[in-house]
């Protein structure tokens, strides 16, 4: 055996090992740094008032209740409307369209929509919805929905394509119609991946501020009217972080903490539920 060559190969392998571990440490280190900042700054701002009081002016012991409620409502609406559309569109691309020209175009447009800056989406919904119906929670939810759909389409299509053809064929062999096969076999097989896609979309919209400025507008008071302006947590965080007042800064960090840990908890819970089912 050529020991020089072997030594070199061993060295390359070692270096590669070190690189790989360093890459993982790099990622983990930054995660730890960000989470640490969130924890130290955010926890100190958390208190019961944050969840029981609406936003108030500096020095008035306000909270984030209306913002949390507003974000929840708009996110739920956006996901409830966007996920079915996204899954159905992804299903078309993976099961029916496949390699046709039309499917190719749809995929392309979807990917461009995926990378569009969210402020552009907000401006689009502003022109279409707000100019005619005014600022509202529904307009805000619509702009978030436009952000959710491409993410779900992409991940659904990817996941469906990974389902082995033999599963589909087995279903068809039993005499089930194609739509039935897709619904009960293919979707079920790709479920975990589709859920990941929805989670990614939720993570994406939970931090969005720019589109909401022109659609939901924001509201310093508690509001339950879906056709009126409504507050949202990212927008409040943005305003408070840029202000001069310490109590607003603390609330901003508390809000950032809430969003991050809500999204993280959602992901972990969804993963746990998935693994339990399997």
């Amino acid at each position: 055996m050529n020991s020089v060559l072997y030594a070199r190969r061993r060295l390359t392998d070692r270096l590669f090992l070190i690189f790989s571990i360093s890459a993982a440490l790099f990622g983990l280190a930054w995660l730890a740094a960000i989470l640490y900042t969130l924890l130290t700054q955010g926890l100190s701002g958390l208190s019961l008032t944050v969840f029981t009081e609406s936003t108030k002016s500096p020095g008035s012991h306000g909270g984030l209740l209306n913002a949390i409620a507003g974000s929840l409502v708009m996110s739920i609406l956006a996901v409830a409307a966007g996920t079915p559309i996204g899954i159905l569109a992804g299903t078309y691309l993976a099961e029916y369209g496949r390699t046709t020209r039309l499917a190719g175009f749809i995929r392309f447009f979807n990917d461009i929509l995926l990378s569009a800056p969210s402020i552009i989406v907000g401006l689009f919904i502003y022109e279409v919805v707000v100019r005619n119906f005014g600022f509202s929670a529904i307009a805000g939810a619509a702009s978030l929905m436009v952000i959710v759909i491409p993410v779900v389409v992409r991940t659904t299509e990817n996941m469906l394509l990974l389902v082995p053809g033999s599963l589909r064929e087995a279903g068809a062999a039993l005499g089930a119609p194609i739509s039935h096969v897709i619904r009960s076999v293919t979707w079920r097989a790709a479920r975990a991946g589709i859920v990941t896609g929805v989670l990614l979309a939720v993570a994406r919209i939970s931090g969005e501020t720019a589109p909401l400025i022109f659609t939901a507008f924001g509201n310093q008071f508690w509001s339950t009217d879906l056709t009126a302006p409504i507050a949202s947590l990212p927008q409040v965080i943005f305003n408070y972080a840029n202000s001069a007042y310490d109590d607003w800064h603390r609330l901003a960090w508390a809000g950032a903490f809430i969003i991050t840990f809500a999204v993280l908890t959602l992901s972990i819970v969804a993963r746990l539920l998935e693994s339990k089912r399997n």
Partner: protein
Amino acid sequence: MKPIFRRLTALSAGVAAGVFAVQAFAADMTGAGATFPYPIYAKWAEAYKAKTGIGLNYQSIGSGGGIAQIKAKTVDFGASDKPLSPADLDTAGLTQFPTVIGGVVPVVNIPGIDAGQLVLDGKTLADICLGKIKYWDDAAVKKLNPSVNLPHLAVVGVHRSDGSGTNFIFTNYLSKKSPQWAANVGAATSVEWPSGIGAKGNEGVAGNVKQTKGALGYVEYAYAKQNKLTYVRMINHDGEAVSPTAEAFQAASARADWVHSKGFYVVLTDQPGKAAWPIAGATFILVYKNPPDAQKTADVLKFFKWAYAEGDKMAADLDYVPLPASTVQAIAKSWHDNIQGVGM
């Protein structure tokens, strides 16, 4: 899904639909625009709602946004840190009036120099921002500060990366004091800065100045005060070196001729007065002369009438400067003269 989950989901959906629905009660007044007065409008709105039950929802989307939204009639009033010129007001059918006054304070980070130690005048400030003065121990700076120990440290200019009324007030002052600035850069909410780095928001500028040795930035008074930044004393129109204080801002407004300026178009920079701070400005409200919804506009005016009468202390608490009484009277008169159908 297991039956219990299904029932729970249906129940919560039902409750949510009951709470969050389309409701037909009277909506709040909405206003949008300048970020500078956002905290005080929020505070006034809270107090007003507690007193009368009527809500005023103000969102700080920026002066440009405020102007655009009032022109698009999607809000009941717009707010702008930069006053519209009488010509623009006429074209749009709007009228404007000021609400509170604030000041823009230059802040520095020079080792060994404390708050209020450094003195600058408008021309020198402009030269620093133009990039002509590159080091802190430059002759021009030394001339104004004979007894201060200035290090040979590079000047790092920090300006606002986002458009804002603060920019407008600051560049307006520089334009007045430096013909070169007026010719090459100009005054606006966003300009093409000849040098320096852009930081986002007052917070960004304050933070960056704190981190960077040799930095010079400018922030709203509230930020300089709350963050205990090293402010600079400025030489005003009358040649006096003044510190940025609420009294100095009020002095800047005291001799301004609000009453005779059409549309209250006054920019409070470089105003005469021994105690006047040279970089001050008011923030304005825009409403229609012939409002499409007269009742809403009447409500808006009632709100501000209350704020002028009862809101001074709240403004002072948050480091804003209320308008002098004579100006408030002139505003009431202008409402009477200019705005139709609101009974003011």
